[in-house]
C-alpha cells in the first residue's frame, strides 16, 4: 500500500508529537507513525522535571543554564545549539503550560521548580531550582499533554506501524517503509519531509532504565543508508537504577534531598548527614552530574564499600537514603518512585534506604543534525534534504559528552518544535519526488529471510550475549582491552544474526519477528557504540577510559562521525565543537 | 471469569433484591386493590397471605428489602462523600452486618407477630 503525506513523523514520543503538533497548525497533511500507541512512548517514563530558567522559585537566568549545560557536557556540546535550547526553553515550557500541562505549582500559582543534578546559579555557585515538574511524572504529563493537543488538532496516527527503512532518491529522503504489526503488511509512505524521533538504544545493555522497545531503530536505519552517527561513544549511565531491575529512581529524589550511602555510612541513614558524595563534590554533593556520580559509585563498589562489600560492580549496590525527608515529601513529591520501591523491591522508602546501582539511561550520540533538526550527511554540515531528526535519536549536539538531568525533556520540546517549523518551510518549497523501482524490496527480502530462511540462531541466545558484553565491556568504565572484546563479540553476533530463524509464521502481530528485527537494529547500535568508544582515546563526560583517564582537549575536542563502510568496517571523520562563550576548563563540582 | 470483589457482589445483590422487591410490589398493589373492595375480598386475600409459603417469602423479602435499603444508602453516601468512596470495602461489610442483624430481629418479630 502506498500513502502520500506532506510530512511524516516517525515516533510518537515527546519530540515526534511536538513536531507533529507544530505541523498540524498548518494546512499540510501529516501522519505520525509509531510502533507503539503514542501514550506508550518512553517519554512517559521520564520523572523528575524539565529544565528552564523561569526563575519562579529563585533568581535564574538562561545564561546560567547555558553554562551548566556546557560544563555538564564536558565542553563537547555545541554552544550555539545549547544557547538556543536554553533560551527557547522558557517559551517552550510556557507553551506546554498553555497546552494544559498540569505542572506542580508554587504558592503563588506559578510553575513549581526543584533542584537537579548539575544545575547551578551564577556559573556554579550553588544548586538552583530550575527543573519544572509535575510531581515525579513530568515526562508522563508532557507525553499526554502533547498527545491530547495532537488529538485536538486531528493529527493522523498510524499506530503500531513499525518503520524499517528510508526511501532515498539519491541524496534526498522521500519517505519511509513501514511494517503494519497488526497485519504484517508492508506500507510505503511517501513524504516531502520526514522526521525521525524514534528514541535511543538503551536495550543494547543488560541493566537499563529504558523500555523494551528502545532498540536504536532510527539510528540503525540511517546508518545502513550511509548516514553517519555522531558521538556514539557517549552513553549515559544513571546513578540510581533500582538494583538488578534498572528501573529508574529519578534524580528528583536527590533533588529533594536524597543521599547516597555506602557500607561505612549505614549508621547515618535517616540523619540527613552528607554521604560519600559530600567529599567528592563539596559544592553540589549528591547533585553532581550523572557521569560523576556513576563513576563514584563504581569506585565505592570496587573498593569494597558497596553494601555487600563484594567489589563486584555487576551485583553489588549502594543505598539511596530518603528516610530523613519524611513521609510528606516522599509521598507527595515522589509518589511514583516510592510506589516502584514498594512494588518491585518491597522497600518502604519512608523507613528504609533503596538499593540502587547505575543503569544505562540515555544516548547522547545519534543522528547528526543542525539546529533546525536537519539530518547531516557528513561532518561538513551537508544536509540530507527532506530528512529531520529530533530527541534522543538525534545529536544536535546539546548534551555533548554527558547530558544534564531535565535537559532531555527540554531537548525534545525545543528541537521537536524547531524541526517542525523548518519542515513547514521545507514543505512549502519542495516538490514530491519520484519513487522508482521497488522501495520496499529490501525490507521484504529481510522479513522473508527472517521468517522463511530456515536459520537456526535464536534471538534469545544472541540478545543477552550482546547486552552483557556491552554492559561489562562498554559500560561506565572502558579500556582498549574491554572495548576490543565488546566490538569483536558484536561483530561475531552480527555474523550469527545473518542465520537467525523464527518459529512464528503468522502474519498478525508477529512479535517474535519484531523482536528479531529489533535485535538487528540493536546490534548495529552496539557496534557503533563499541567502535566509537574504542576510537576515542580520552576520558570525557560519560566516556571513561581507564587507559586514558584524562580529558584531552588538544586531540579530542571534536565530535566523532562514524560511517558505515562495509560489513565489519567503519570509518571516522570529525567535526569541530562550536565554542562561543565558554572556553573549556577543568570540570570540578 | 472476572473475580467478584466486594463492590461487584453488592451490586449483583442490589439488582437481584431490587427485581424481587418490584415483583412483590406488583403483587402487593394488585392484592391491595382487591382488599379495598370490601371485607369479604379482604379476608379472602388475607387467607393467602397466611399460608406458610407466603410468609416464608415475606420474611425473605424483609432480608432483601433491608439489604437493598442499606446498600442503597451506602451507594448514596459513596456518591456524595469522598470518605465513603475511600472506605468502600469496609462499608460493604458493614452493610452486610447491619442488614443481617436487622434481618434476624425483624424476621423473628414478623414471624411471631402474625402467628
Amino acid at each position: 500500500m502506498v500513502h502520500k503525506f506532506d510530512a511524516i513523523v516517525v515516533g510518537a514520543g515527546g519530540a515526534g508529537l511536538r513536531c507533529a503538533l507544530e505541523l498540524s497548525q498548518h494546512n499540510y497533511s501529516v501522519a505520525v507513525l509509531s510502533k507503539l500507541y503514542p501514550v506508550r512512548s518512553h517519554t512517559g517514563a521520564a520523572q523528575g522535571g524539565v529544565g528552564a530558567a523561569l526563575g519562579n522559585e529563585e533568581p535564574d537566568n538562561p545564561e546560567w543554564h547555558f553554562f551548566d549545560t556546557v560544563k555538564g557536557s564536558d565542553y563537547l556540546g555545541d554552544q550555539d545549539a545549547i544557547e538556543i535550547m536554553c533560551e527557547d526553553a522558557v517559551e517552550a515550557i510556557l507553551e506546554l503550560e498553555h497546552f494544559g500541562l498540569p505542572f506542580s505549582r508554587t504558592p503563588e500559582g506559578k510553575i513549581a521548580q526543584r533542584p537537579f543534578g548539575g544545575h547551578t546559579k551564577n556559573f556554579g555557585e550553588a544548586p538552583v531550582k530550575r527543573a519544572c515538574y509535575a510531581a515525579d511524572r513530568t515526562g508522563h504529563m508532557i507525553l499526554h499533554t502533547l498527545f491530547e493537543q495532537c488529538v485536538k488538532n486531528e493529527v493522523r496516527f498510524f499506530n503500531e506501524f513499525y518503520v524499517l527503512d528510508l526511501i532515498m532518491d539519491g541524496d534526498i529522503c522521500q519517505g519511509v517503509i513501514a511494517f503494519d504489526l497488526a497485519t504484517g503488511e508492508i506500507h510505503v509512505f511517501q513524504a516531502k519531509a520526514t522526521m525521525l524521533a524514534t528514541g535511543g538504544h538503551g536495550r543494547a545493555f543488560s541493566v537499563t532504565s529504558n523500555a523494551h522497545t528502545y532498540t536504536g531503530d532510527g539510528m540503525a536505519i540511517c546508518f545502513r543508508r550511509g548516514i553517519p552517527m555522531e558521538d556514539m561513544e557517549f552513553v549515559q549511565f544513571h546513578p540510581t537504577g533500582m538494583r538488578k531491575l534498572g528501573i529508574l529512581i529519578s534524580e528528583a529524589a536527590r533533588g529533594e534531598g536524597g543521599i547516597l550511602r555506602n557500607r561505612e555510612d549505614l549508621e547515618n541513614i535517616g540523619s540527613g548527614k552528607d554521604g560519600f558524595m559530600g567529599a567528592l563534590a563539596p559544592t553540589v554533593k549528591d547533585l553532581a552530574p550523572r557521569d560523576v556520580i556513576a563513576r563514584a559509585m563504581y569506585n565505592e563498589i570496587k573498593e569494597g564499600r558497596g553494601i555487600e562489600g563484594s567489589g563486584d560492580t555487576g551485583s553489588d549496590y549502594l543505598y539511596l537514603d530518603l528516610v530523613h525527608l519524611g513521609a510528606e515529601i516522599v509521598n507527595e513529591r515522589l509518589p511514583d518512585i516510592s510506589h516502584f520501591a514498594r512494588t518491585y523491591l518491597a522497600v518502604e522508602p519512608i523507613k528504609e534506604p533503596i538499593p540502587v546501582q547505575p543503569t544505562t539511561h540515555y544516548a547522547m550520540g545519534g543522528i547528526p543534525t543542525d539546529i533546525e533538526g536537519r539530518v547531516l550527511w557528513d561532518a561538513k554540515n551537508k544536509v540530507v534534504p527532506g530528512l529531520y531528526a529530533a530527541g534522543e535519536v538525534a545529536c544536535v549536539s546539546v548534551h555533548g559528552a554527558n547530558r544534564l538531568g531535565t535537559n532531555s525533556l527540554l531537548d525534545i520540546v525545543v528541537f521537536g518544535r524547531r524541526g517542525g517549523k523548518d519542515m513547514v518551510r521545507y514543505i512549502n518549497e519542495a516538490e514530491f519526488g519520484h519513487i522508482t523501482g521497488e522501495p520496499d524490496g529490501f525490507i521484504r527480502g529481510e522479513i522473508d529471510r527472517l521468517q522463511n530462511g530456515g536459520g537456526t540462531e535464536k534471538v534469545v541466545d544472541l540478545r543477552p550475549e550482546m547486552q552483557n558484553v556491552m554492559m561489562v565491556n562498554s559500560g561506565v568504565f572502558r579500556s582498549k582491552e574491554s572495548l576490543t572484546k565488546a566490538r569483536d563479540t558484536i561483530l561475531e553476533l552480527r555474523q550469527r544474526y545473518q542465520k537467525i530463524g523464527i518459529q512464528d509464521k503468522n502474519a498478525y502481530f508477529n512479535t517474535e519477528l519484531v523482536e528479531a528485527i529489533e535485535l538487528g537494529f540493536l546490534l548495529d547500535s552496539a557496534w557503533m557504540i563499541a567502535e566509537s568508544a574504542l576510537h576515542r582515546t580520552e576520558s570525557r563526560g560519560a566516556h571513561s577510559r581507564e587507559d586514558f583517564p584524562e580529558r584531552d582537549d588538544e586531540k579530542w575536542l571534536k565530535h566523532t562521525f562514524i560511517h558505515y563502510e562495509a560489513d565489519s568496517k567503519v570509518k571516522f571523520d570529525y567535526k569541530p565543537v562550536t565554542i562561543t562563550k565558554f572556553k573549556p576548563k577543568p570540570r570540578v563540582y | 471469569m472476572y473475580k467478584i470483589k466486594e463492590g461487584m457482589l453488592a451490586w449483583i445483590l442490589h439488582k437481584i433484591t431490587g427485581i424481587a422487591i418490584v415483583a412483590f410490589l406488583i403483587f402487593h398493589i394488585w392484592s391491595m386493590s382487591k382488599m379495598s373492595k370490601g371485607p369479604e375480598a379482604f379476608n379472602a386475600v388475607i387467607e393467602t397471605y397466611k399460608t406458610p409459603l407466603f410468609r416464608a417469602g415475606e420474611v425473605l423479602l424483609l432480608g432483601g428489602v433491608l439489604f437493598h435499603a442499606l446498600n442503597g444508602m451506602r451507594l448514596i453516601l459513596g456518591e456524595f462523600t469522598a470518605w465513603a468512596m475511600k472506605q468502600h470495602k469496609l462499608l460493604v461489610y458493614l452493610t452486610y452486618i447491619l442488614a443481617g442483624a436487622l434481618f434476624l430481629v425483624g424476621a423473628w418479630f414478623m414471624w411471631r407477630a402474625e402467628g
Partner: protein
Amino acid sequence: MEVTVEIYRYDPDTEESRFDTFVKEVDPKDRVLDVMMAIKDEDDGTIAFRKSCAHGVCGSDAMEINGLNRLACQVLVQDLKSKRIRIEPIRGMKVLRDLIVDMDSFFAGLEKVKPYLIPAEPAPATERLQSIGDRAIFDDTTKCIMCGSCTTSCPSFRWFNQDFVGPAAFVKAHRFIFDSRDGGNEPRLEILDDKDGLWRCHSIFNCTDACPREIHITKAIGDLKRYTVVHR
C-alpha cells in the same frame, strides 16, 4: 518455585481460541511479565503480547491475570499467592491475537470526551496561574496511562454494552473538567449525561481495584455525577 502458567491463545486465521499450559521454575520476585517473556523465549516463541516500559508507566501490558485486570509488569509472582497463573486478554474489546486486543476502539472512545484542554481564556504572556489547591483537585486523574484496565473490568462495559463511555474516559473528563484553566465543559457534559454516559456507572469499584496507577476512579466518577447534576 514452580508455577503452572495458562496462557490464552487466539489464532485470527482459524478464529479458534484455547489455553496453553506451561510449567515454569520462577523466582517469587519475578514479574508476571518476566515469566511470560521466559516462556516466549524458552518454550513458545509464537505467544503474542504487548510490552514496553516494564515498570508500570506505559500501559502496554494490561491483561487479566487470575481473574483481575493487572499490568503484567506490576504483578510479582509472589503477590498472586497461587501456584497457578491464568493469563487472559482484557475483555470487552476485540481480541486480535493471543493477548493482544484492539485498542483503536478504546482510544476512539476516549476522544468522545474531548480529552484536551479547552482554555477558558486566551493564554497570557506567562503561565496561567493555578493555586496549589486547584491543582490538587484533579491530581489523581492526571496519573492515567490509558492502559484500559479499568474500562475492561467494568461489567457495564464488558458484560453489556461497549457503547458505554467507560471509566477511562471519565477519568480523562475529570482531569479536564476540574482543571481551573479549562472552559470546555459543555460538550463534555453532553457526552457524560448521555444514556451511555455516567449514569450507567453503578459504583461497582472494579475500575478502582483494577487501576495500576491507584487512581480512585469511582470517586472521580462520583465527582462528575454531582458536577453534572449541578451544571446541567
